């Protein structure tokens, strides 16, 4: 018998084995996955994708807009200063109280809020919208790889990636190998068995590369996480079946992501996916399903900061969603698919404490198609600035390779510390 592969043990020790909830109620935790890739240097970049369309007007209420309260009706938050009011940002915009940990980051100059922002996608399908957010061009089917993978292709050095989650999100798919990685409840495999399997998979265009990357990811995990528990032993039939566990907060995966990113030779780019934002009905205001999701997000981002430790100083976290939601409340106490919304940059490398928004207004004639917050900033502009100022990619290559045909989205500079 060869050495028992310890990928499981490594993450099991790290996360207490709590990842990977499926059947649990109030059902799932957020659909979480993390992917990471190694770069040279100290800079860390994390993208958090909020799947399902975050209601930007709930997360970042434009409380001073004269039409806000009228249109949002029962979903409007009270102004800052009043009981249960929004947390003030700059006299015009506030944060949902459930985002209090982010408000602290904002006040510490480590978070910038973007509003009336959108990808170039202008229809209202989640699935196409997410594809456009991730492929970095104007249409869902125009490119089948992700802009972050193309960015990685421009970065030198070791580029092995990792993903917590069983598959790799589109944003990280492409020519540059990126592994995915997650703790599971099944014990590890014998190394000899895996190498025999690798021979069988040699000619399989899908299974072959996936297995090779999985074995590499294992090696990287061992290195990044230190000596894992090795006494996993042979699995037995009884151990195959796992108990159902409770819902999984984002904090759990964010902590792992932070540890992997903080390690000296660890990952430098990561992607986390958080689901549950499609609030069509009864989304609530101060409390309720959306407030719970926001609190989970804020707790997750705070956990990421904590586990990054000193590396937070060199970190940019971008939080984005596929589109915003309707300005007006729909007939069922929720909001339907919209256009413009909110996004965030956080991290020690961010010149924060600012709201960047060319506010279009909420009057009837100011709304996009009479119903949505009109976008005045292209999300790609923000991301271009991060790739240039944080990861040091040449502007020309960003325009040509990462975000082709994006002249309408000029690079937004000065969002980061020099």
């Amino acid at each position, binding site marked *: 018998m060869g050495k028992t592969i310890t990928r499981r043990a490594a993450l099991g020790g790290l996360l207490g084995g709590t990842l990977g909830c499926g059947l649990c109620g109030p059902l799932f935790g957020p659909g979480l996955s993390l992917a990471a890739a190694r770069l040279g240097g100290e800079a860390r970049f994390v993208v958090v994708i909020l799947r399902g369309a975050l209601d930007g007007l709930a997360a970042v209420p434009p409380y001073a807009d004269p039409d806000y309260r009228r249109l949002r009706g029962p979903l409007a938050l009270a102004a800052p200063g009043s009981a249960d009011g929004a947390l003030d940002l700059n006299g015009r915009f506030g944060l949902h109280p459930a985002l209090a940990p982010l408000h602290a980051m904002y006040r510490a100059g480590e978070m910038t809020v973007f509003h009336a922002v959108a990808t170039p996608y202008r229809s209202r399908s989640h699935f196409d919208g997410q594809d456009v957010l991730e492929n970095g061009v104007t249409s869902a089917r125009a490119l089948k790889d992700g802009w972050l993978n193309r960015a990685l292709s421009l970065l030198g050095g070791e580029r092995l990636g990792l993903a917590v989650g069983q598959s790799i999100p589109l944003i990280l798919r492409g020519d540059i190998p990126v592994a995915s990685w997650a703790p599971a409840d099944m014990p590890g495999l014998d190394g000899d068995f895996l190498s025999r399997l690798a021979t*069988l998979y040699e000619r399989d265009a899908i299974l072959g590369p996936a297995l090779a990357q999985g074995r590499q990811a294992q090696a990287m995990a061992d290195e990044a996480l230190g000596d894992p528990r090795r006494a996993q032993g042979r699995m037995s039939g009884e151990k195959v079946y796992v108990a159902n566990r409770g819902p999984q907060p984002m904090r759990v995966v964010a902590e792992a992501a932070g540890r992997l990113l903080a390690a000296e030779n660890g990952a430098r780019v990561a992607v986390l996916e958080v689901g549950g934002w499609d609030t069509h009905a009864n989304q609530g205001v101060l409390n309720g399903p959306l407030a719970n999701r926001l609190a989970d997000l804020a707790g997750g981002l705070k956990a990421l900061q904590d586990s990054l430790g000193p590396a937070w100083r060199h970190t940019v976290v971008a939080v984005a969603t596929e589109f915003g939601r309707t300005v007006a409340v729909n007939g069922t106490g929720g909001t339907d698919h919209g256009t413009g919304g909110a996004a965030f940059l956080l991290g020690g490398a961010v010149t924060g404490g600012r709201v960047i928004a060319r506010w279009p207004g909420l009057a009837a004639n100011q709304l996009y198609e009479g119903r949505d917050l009109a976008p005045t900033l292209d999300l790609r502009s923000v991301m271009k600035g991060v790739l240039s100022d944080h990861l040091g990619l040449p502007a020309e290559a960003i325009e040509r390779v990462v975000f082709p045909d994006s002249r309408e989205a000029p690079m937004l500079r000065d969002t980061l510390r020099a």
Partner: protein
Amino acid sequence: MTTRAAFIAVNRFGLGARPGELERAARDPVGWAKRQIHAPPSLPAAFAGLPSGPSRMADFLHARQRRGDGGVQQLFRESFRQTFREEAAARLRVHVESEMPFRERLVAFWSNHFTVSVQRPIVLGLAGAFEREAIRPNVAGRFLDLLTAVVRHPAMLTYLDNGQSFGPNSPGGLRRGRGLNENLAREILELHTLGVEGGYTQDDVREFAKILTGWTMAPPEDPQAGHFRFAVGIHEPGAKTFLGRRVGPGLINEGEEVLALLARHPATARHIATKLARHFIADNPPAAAIERLARIFRDTDGNLAALSEAIVEQPEAWDEALPKLRTPHEFVVAALRAVEFNGAGESMLGTLRTLGQLSFAAPSPAGWPDTAERWIGPEAVLRRAEWAMAMGLRVAAIREPRQLFAGTIEPVAARSTALAISRAPSAGEAVATLFAAPEFQRR
């Protein structure tokens, strides 16, 4: 090469070979599949005694009316979750034990096309019933009947919110200050019928949502509580304009007219044909096959028996390469069929979750993905190998590797695979190698 054709029949159209199934299919692989389409539909015994959708919906409505939110949460926790576990286990058992696996594949295909997901807790009590009541009886009927059954089922009406969508100018909407919810209307157009490029606009979504107001369930105080009910009092009055034509005013007839229009629309034919070809032929299905299937859909007015036969008749569907990767559920089912693991129970659900595909738990209304790249990452491939090993160790004492090999992948196995199985250091690893082999992971 009848054994190769039999392999394709029982894997590409079926759920993987149970012992003896390859030989039975080898006599007439095409006929083996086609006969299942026309077999009289009978409900598999494993589903006996499971509750109906309307009855569980009524339980929910009564709990909410009598005991409020706390009562609803308690119902979900103490009852709906158990219903779900029983439903998911029964479904697995049916897939493992079925002698009509092509028919089960069709049920699963349409169930995924019209996804309801337990990501919303209320669906825990309804998802199994939805597949059994709305999908299963209609997979060899007309597409319009299937679509209509789906849209009227309490699971779909709740999952995509239509049950609580009010016409803003209806008496009920005005009285209660409630209005539209676009969710179901949009997903019918985008996911169930025309497809995202099917040529509809935001205005069409909105108008369709108005048309569908009133499609809901009978309220708790009604003897028919939980059953489909067209509630006139919340239906948006007046005529609507949908896809450039005037619809109504005609109450429930408006929705029925639009569903019929959608079922007959060429974009729907194309959308369905593409998804079927992707499911049964290849991740990037050949354009010619899509075209032929779309034509049959149009020419037969959405006759799903004819369409299912046509899928089996596509020459591309008998390609000897194995272009499709099994989903986690298909992978587990194939392995359990190979070893005749009958009586699969709730204890298997953890495995399906760990491998990434628990029944009725798709991540969104778009359903489970149907391309290999969405399923296989470095982590997933290791998990499958681990489960193969666990199964191998578990069954080696009672199943002979050589016989398992002959009964499953031998007709298409590469020499290297056959050698690796025969030379494995133990019987357990031999079976593990068989299940992990590319020939077993593909179909």
